[in-house]
C-alpha cells in the first residue's frame, strides 16, 4: 500500500470508518454512528398506562439507534466483504458448499409454514406434519434406515442424538459395562467430543497406509480392552472418510463390531458422495446423522442454522429421541415419550429446525430419485477429475478413486517454504474461497477439496488452472510473496494471536 493511501485509510479509520474506494467500502459499528432521533421501526404509540410487572421499569439500555435507510445501508455494505457460494466456486472439503435454490427459501416463507406455532393443536397444522412425514420417508429410504428423528439442530447435535441412542440401547438392555467408543484418527473433532458428552471413553483406530481403515488395526482396537470386545459400546466412522475415500473394508469391520455387540454410528457429513447410490444400512450402519445443510442444500448462512436429523435401524428406533411423526389413518400425529417409553427423551424444544425441513424437502422433490443419484455421481466425478488434473503439481497422498472430495498436501511446495496456509491465502487473492486446510490431521499440510455437483466443467477447469498457477508461483515467486497474501481482499491476514490474548468481544465506549 502506498504511503498516501495508507494515510488516507488511517484518516477515515480514526474519524468515521465510513470511507470507500471504488466499490471497497468501510463501515463503522452501529455504536459508532451518530444516535438518530428516529428509530427504524414505526410502532403504534403506547398509551402510557402504569405497568403491572411488579418490577421497576428498565432505564436506558444504551443501544444505538438509526433510521431504516441507515440500517439497511449498514448491513448491505458489510455484506460486500463476504465471499459466498453465489459468488463462485467454494471447494471447502467436508462442507458440501452446493447451490442453495431460492425456491426453497420461497417455500419456507409461505405463511402456512413460517407463521405457525409449535404448540398449536395438531389438527391445525396437518400440512406441517405431512411435510415432516414425507421428509422422514425420503431420508429413511435414501439411507435404508427406517427410524427417522428430525429434531437435532445440526450435525454435532445429530451426532449426540445418535450416540445417546446407542447409549440408551445399551442401558435398556442392561449392557452398562460397554463404555468404549472406537473412533478413527481421521474423524471430525466433534466425534470424540460427542462421545465424551455421553460418558464414553474414546479409543483411537489408526488410519492405514492407504488412507483407509485396515481390518487388522480395527481388530486390535476392538479387542484391546477385552478379548471379546465386551467393553465396546460402538464405533463412530465417517464414510466416505475425511481423506475423501470410501472405507473399502467397512462391511467386514461392521460385522466384527456387531459380533462384539457394538453399534455402528456413521457420521453423515459426507453423504453427498452416496445419496441415491449407496444406502448406509447396506454397509452395516445402525444409526447416522444427515446434514440437511450439506447434502440437501439448506443454506450455511455464515454459520447456521443447520439441521441434523438421525436415521436408524428398526431396532434402535425404539431408543431414538422423540418426537417423530406417524400416520394414523388419514391423520398425522406425534409419537412422544408416552408412546415410546424406551426413548432417550427430548434433545431440543419442539420439533426441530422445521424451516430447514421445508427447504430440504423442496430440494429433494426438485431432484427426485433420479436427480439425487446424479448429484452424487457428478460430485464424485468432479472430485476425481480435479485429483487427476492436479496430481503432477501437488502431492496426492492416497490412491483413488476418491469420493466427492480429494485430498492433497503441500509436500511439494514445502521445499520452497510455501505451505498449505499460503496456498489457501493465495486462492483468496485469486478470488476463490480456499479448500479445507490442515484437516484431516492424519498427515501434515492437508488440503481437502470438495467441488460438489454445482460446478460446471468450465468452473472446475478454471480452478485447476489457478491451482497450477499457484504451484508455479511457489517455485518462482518465493515465500515472501506468499506471506503477504491476500492483498486484494477487504482485509489482509488478521492477527488471531492478538484477538485471543486480549479478547475484545463486544463494543465498548472508548
Amino acid at each position: 500500500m502506498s504511503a498516501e493511501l495508507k494515510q488516507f485509510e488511517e484518516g477515515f479509520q480514526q474519524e468515521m470508518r465510513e470511507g470507500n474506494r471504488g466499490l471497497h467500502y468501510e463501515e463503522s459499528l452501529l455504536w459508532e454512528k451518530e444516535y438518530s432521533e428516529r428509530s427504524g421501526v414505526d410502532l403504534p404509540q403506547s398509551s402510557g398506562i402504569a405497568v403491572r410487572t411488579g418490577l421497576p421499569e428498565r432505564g436506558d439500555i444504551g443501544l444505538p439507534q438509526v433510521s431504516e435507510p441507515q440500517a439497511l445501508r449498514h448491513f448491505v455494505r458489510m455484506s460486500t466483504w463476504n465471499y459466498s457460494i453465489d459468488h463462485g466456486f467454494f471447494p471447502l472439503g467436508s462442507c458440501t458448499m452446493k447451490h442453495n435454490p431460492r425456491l426453497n427459501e420461497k417455500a419456507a416463507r409461505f405463511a402456512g409454514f413460517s407463521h405457525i406455532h409449535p404448540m398449536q393443536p395438531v389438527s391445525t397444522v396437518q400440512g406441517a406434519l405431512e411435510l415432516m412425514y414425507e421428509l422422514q420417508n425420503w431420508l429413511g429410504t435414501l439411507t435404508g434406515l427406517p427410524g427417522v428423528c428430525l429434531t437435532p439442530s445440526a450435525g454435532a447435535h445429530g451426532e449426540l442424538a445418535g450416540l445417546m441412542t446407542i447409549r440408551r440401547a445399551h442401558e435398556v438392555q442392561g449392557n452398562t459395562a460397554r463404555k468404549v467408543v472406537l473412533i478413527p484418527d481421521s474423524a471430525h473433532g466433534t466425534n470424540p467430543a460427542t462421545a465424551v458428552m455421553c460418558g464414553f471413553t474414546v479409543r483411537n483406530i489408526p488410519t492405514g497406509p492407504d488412507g483407509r481403515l485396515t481390518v487388522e488395526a480395527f481388530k486390535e482396537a476392538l479387542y484391546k480392552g477385552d478379548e471379546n470386545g465386551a467393553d465396546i459400546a460402538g464405533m463412530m466412522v465417517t464414510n466416505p472418510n475425511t481423506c475423501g475415500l470410501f472405507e473399502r473394508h467397512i462391511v467386514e469391520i461392521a460385522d466384527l463390531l456387531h459380533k462384539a455387540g457394538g453399534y455402528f454410528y456413521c457420521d453423515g457429513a459426507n453423504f453427498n458422495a452416496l445419496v441415491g447410490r449407496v444406502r448406509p444400512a447396506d454397509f452395516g450402519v445402525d444409526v447416522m446423522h444427515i446434514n440437511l445443510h450439506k447434502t440437501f442444500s439448506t443454506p450455511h448462512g455464515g454459520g447456521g442454522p443447520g439441521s441434523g436429523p438421525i436415521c436408524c435401524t428398526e431396532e434402535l428406533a425404539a431408543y431414538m429421541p422423540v418426537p417423530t411423526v406417524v400416520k394414523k389413518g388419514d391423520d398425522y400425529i406425534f409419537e412422544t415419550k408416552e408412546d415410546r417409553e424406551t426413548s432417550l427423551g427430548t434433545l431440543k424444544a419442539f420439533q426441530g429446525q422445521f424451516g430447514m425441513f421445508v427447504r430440504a424437502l423442496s430440494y429433494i422433490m426438485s431432484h427426485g430419485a433420479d436427480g439425487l443419484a446424479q448429484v452424487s455421481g457428478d460430485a464424485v466425478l468432479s472430485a476425481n477429475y480435479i485429483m487427476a488434473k492436479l496430481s503432477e503439481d501437488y502431492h496426492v497422498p492416497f490412491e483413488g478413486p476418491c469420493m466427492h472430495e480429494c485430498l492433497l498436501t503441500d509436500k511439494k511446495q514445502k521445499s520452497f517454504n510455501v505451505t498449505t496456509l499460503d496456498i489457501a491465502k493465495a486462492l483468496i487473492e485469486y478470488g476463490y474461497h480456499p479448500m479445507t486446510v490442515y484437516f484431516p490431521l492424519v498427515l501434515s499440510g492437508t488440503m481437502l477439496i470438495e467441488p460438489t455437483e454445482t460446478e460446471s466443467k468450465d468452473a472446475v477447469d478454471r480452478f485447476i488452472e489457478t491451482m497450477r498457477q499457484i504451484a508455479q508461483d511457489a517455485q518462482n515467486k518465493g515465500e515472501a510473496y506468499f506471506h503477504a497474501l491476500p492483498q486484494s481482499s477487504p482485509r489482509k491476514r488478521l492477527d488471531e494471536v492478538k484477538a485471543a490474548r486480549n479478547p475484545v468481544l463486544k463494543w465498548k465506549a472508548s
Partner: protein
Amino acid sequence: MRYLPLSKNAHDEMLEEVGASRIRDLYKDVPSSALLDDIVDMPHHKGEIEVERELSAMAAKNRSAGDGPFFLGAGVYYHHVPASVDYIIQRSEFLTAYTPYQPEIAQGTLQAVFEFQSFIAQLTGQDIANASLYDGSTACVEAALMAMRITKRRKVSIGTPLHPEYRKVLDSYMGNLGDVEIVDGEPDEETACVIVQSPDFLGNPHAYDLWRKRCDETGALLVVVITEIVSLGLLPAPSEADIVCGEAQSIGIPMSYGGPHLGFFACREKFLRQMPGRLCGMTEDADGRRGFVLTLSTREQHIRRDKATSNICTNQGLCALAFTVHMSLLGETGVRQLARLNHEKACALADALEKIKGVEIENKNFFNEFVVSLPKPANQIVDELVTLDIIGGLALDGNRLLVCATEMTRDEDIERLVTALRKVL
C-alpha cells in the same frame, strides 16, 4: 435437472481424464452388496411449478397466526418482522456464506456477529455473550453444564416454573450423564446452579436479589433463563446473574413451527474460558486495520476434541443476523416501545377476559402472557375455540389456560376471543 450443470459432453471428457468408462467405476471401493443397481423407488425430479404447487398445498393445510385471532405464546412468540430484516438475510453474501473461518473474506459475517454479541451483552446486562446457540432449550442445558464445570458440583435446582420443553431437554441431557440430580426449589451447598426463568413459564416476572443472595450463601451460580427477550425492554436487566441464556426468536425470527430459532448465552467475563460455543473478537490485519476473527477456539471441539467444553460447532448464524438487523432497526427507543406495547396489549387482554363470568386471572404480575382459570377444562376450550378459528392459547393442567398478547394482537382479536369464550363457557 436445472441445478446440475455438467453436460453429457463434460461427463465424457472428465471420465476419460480420470480413466473410467462410467461413473459407477468410481465407486469400485464400495462392496457390491452395498451399491444399488438402480435408483431408489421414489418419485422422479419435478419442475419449479410443480414443487411450488405441492408445497403450497401443504402450507395451506396449516392455520397460520395471521389468519385470525392468535393468543399462543409459551416460549415462542408471534411478533412482527420488518421487511428489511428478511431482505438482508436473503442476500447471497450472508445466506450462502460458510462459517467465517477465512476472516479476510468473511468480515461481513464477523462484524455482524460482533454486533450481535454486543446487543446480547447490553440487553442482558452481562459482560460477554457468545455468537449464539441452537435454541433456548439447549442454551439452558449448556448453562447448567457450564455451572457444573465451574463449581464441580452435580446438582441443578429449578427455582421458578421452567418451560416444560426446556425441562424435558434438561432431563434428557442430564439423564445421559447419569449422575446429575435435578430438583425443584432453592439451591443448597451441593448445588451447581439455580435456574430462574423470568418471566417464568406462567408469565410471572421475577426479581433476582433474593436469588443472588441465596447463591452467594451456597456457592451456586445464578442462571437466568429468558424465553421472551422482548421483555428485557421493560423489565430490569438480570445483571445479578452469573449466566443469562434463553431464546431470542422474538426479535427478527418467525415462529416456523419451532425452528430455526436463536439460543443466546451471556455471562460474566471471569467465566469466559468455560463458555460454550463460538466467539468473535476484534483484532487488526497486517496493515493495522480493524477486523474481526473467531477467537478462543482452544475451548472448542475441533482443537480440543475429547476435552472440549461442548461438542457444538455451529451457531445459528443467519438467525443471529436477523436478530441483529431487527435490533438495529428498533434501536434504543424502539426496543423499549415494543416491550411496552406488548405489555399494554396483555393488560388490555387481561382486562377484557376478567369481565367474563367465571374467568379469573391468576397472575398478579405479568409481561405479555398470563394464566387464566376457566370454569371448564382448558383443553376442551382450546379445541372449541379452534372450531371458531381462534388459537386461544396453551391448555395447562385442568382448567388453566396460558394466553399471550403481542404487538400483533388487535382489539378486534380480543373482542372475538371474549365473544367466543362467552359462547363456549
